């Protein structure tokens, strides 16, 4: 599995972690991680600590996730991006849209 997700009901967190490559091939899996979650006030955490490569479709997927998060009044945080990934996020100016740490 290249996409892992785990819902922690006690701390209201949904953690989605991605493997090395984050590209178009993951879009179905990625969408399945959150499309059925309709809980409000949840904290979505996208863990990119293992990710080394990311293309524009990954950015599109994150934006779709962001739309979903906003629809259910939740927050989105990107965690531990590598240098390269961090640069790509910076170019796409994602730091204005969500928390990156």
């Amino acid at each position, binding site marked *: 599995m290249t996409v892992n997700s785990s819902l922690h009901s006690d701390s209201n967190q949904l953690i989605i972690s991605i493997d090395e490559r984050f*590209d*178009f091939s993951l*879009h*179905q899996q990625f*969408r399945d991680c959150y499309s059925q979650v309709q809980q409000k006030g949840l904290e979505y955490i996208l863990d990119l600590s293992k990710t080394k490569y*990311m*293309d*524009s*479709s990954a*950015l*599109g*997927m994150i*934006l*779709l996730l962001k739309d979903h998060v906003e629809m259910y009044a939740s927050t989105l945080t990107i965690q531990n991006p590598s240098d*390269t990934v961090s*640069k*790509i996020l910076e*170019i*796409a*100016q994602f730091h204005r849209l969500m928390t990156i740490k």
Partner: protein
Amino acid sequence: MSINRYMFGLFFTLTILIIVNQLVIESSAMFFVVVTLLLFCLGYYFLILEKSSISNSSPAKEQYIPDVDNELIHNVVFELQQFLQQEIKVIEAELNRTKLLIEEAVFGMSDSFKEMQSLTDEQQSMILQLIDNSHSFAGGEGTLEDFVKDSDKTLDDFVNVIVNTSKQSLETMNYTDEMVTQFDGIFNILSQVESLASQTNLLALNAAIEAARAGDAGRGFAVVANEVRSLSVDSTELNQEIRNEINQAKETIANLRQSVEIMASADMTSTLEAKNKMSVMMKHVDKLNQYTNSSVDKLSNLSPKLTDAVATGVRSLQFEDLTRQSLHSLELNVESILSISKVLADFENKPSSDVHQQLISLKDKCQAVYQETHLAESKRSVKQLNMDEGDIDLF
């Protein structure tokens, strides 16, 4: 003659002593002593008088050869006059030459200073133009910095477009997936329709068998049963066609999926590199701007310094004025010497007249000239001697 005065004083005192002795003391011993002293002093006086007359006799003797000395004096004066004349000529020539040289040099220097000033101005304006050009492009629209900033913004917009395209493509993909699910639903319904058709077929077959058993009475019903059966076969065929069409649509959707995938997955590496290059470029432009600004500052500081240097040079050219004054006073001095020389020439012209008289008149004239020169010199020393005190006098 001081000795005479002392002697007369002594004689007088001794005579007074004798008179006092005769009138008051009346001592013969004293009289004798005083008279002896008086006689002794008289003897000594005559001895000295004799000696001084001998020592005075030697210059008196020289006065006996005045003709030879007069000639010598004339010769000396003539030589002196000749010498002075020659020296004056040389000095005047040198003075004139110096004047000319200084004048030429000053003109040359003044010209070169003027040219230097104009060249400096030209250089300054060229530098300013260069700075202007370095800031803006040929058309004068925007600076290099603006261009880089615009490019950076364009790149950001481009990235935005890419990301949004990806997002839209993914949404399209989601809709497509939903459509595929719906196709599966259609297939499900189609299988139900197919089973209906096969049941209809079986029913029609049963009806035909029952019609055959009824004989002639069931003949018409057999025709209807056959028609129903052929209808069910047709409907099965139609179902198959629908299935085929939908399968083709599924293939088309697979193609669509690939296209959308290509559209959605743009590699960000080149964009990342472009962005890096842009930031390097931005830093470079910043550095360039800073360097240009500091150069402009330096140059603008340099320009007044150059002007100052040229002004100092021009002011220093006032030495010509001072030198001219010095040369003029030198000329006056030469004229004084010349007038003395003329006096000497007059001396030479009247050899027969009294030498003593001529010497006295020469002395007087010399004194007159000396007084004149001294007066002129004291006037001159009041005049300006320092160049720095004067204002800038442009030539």
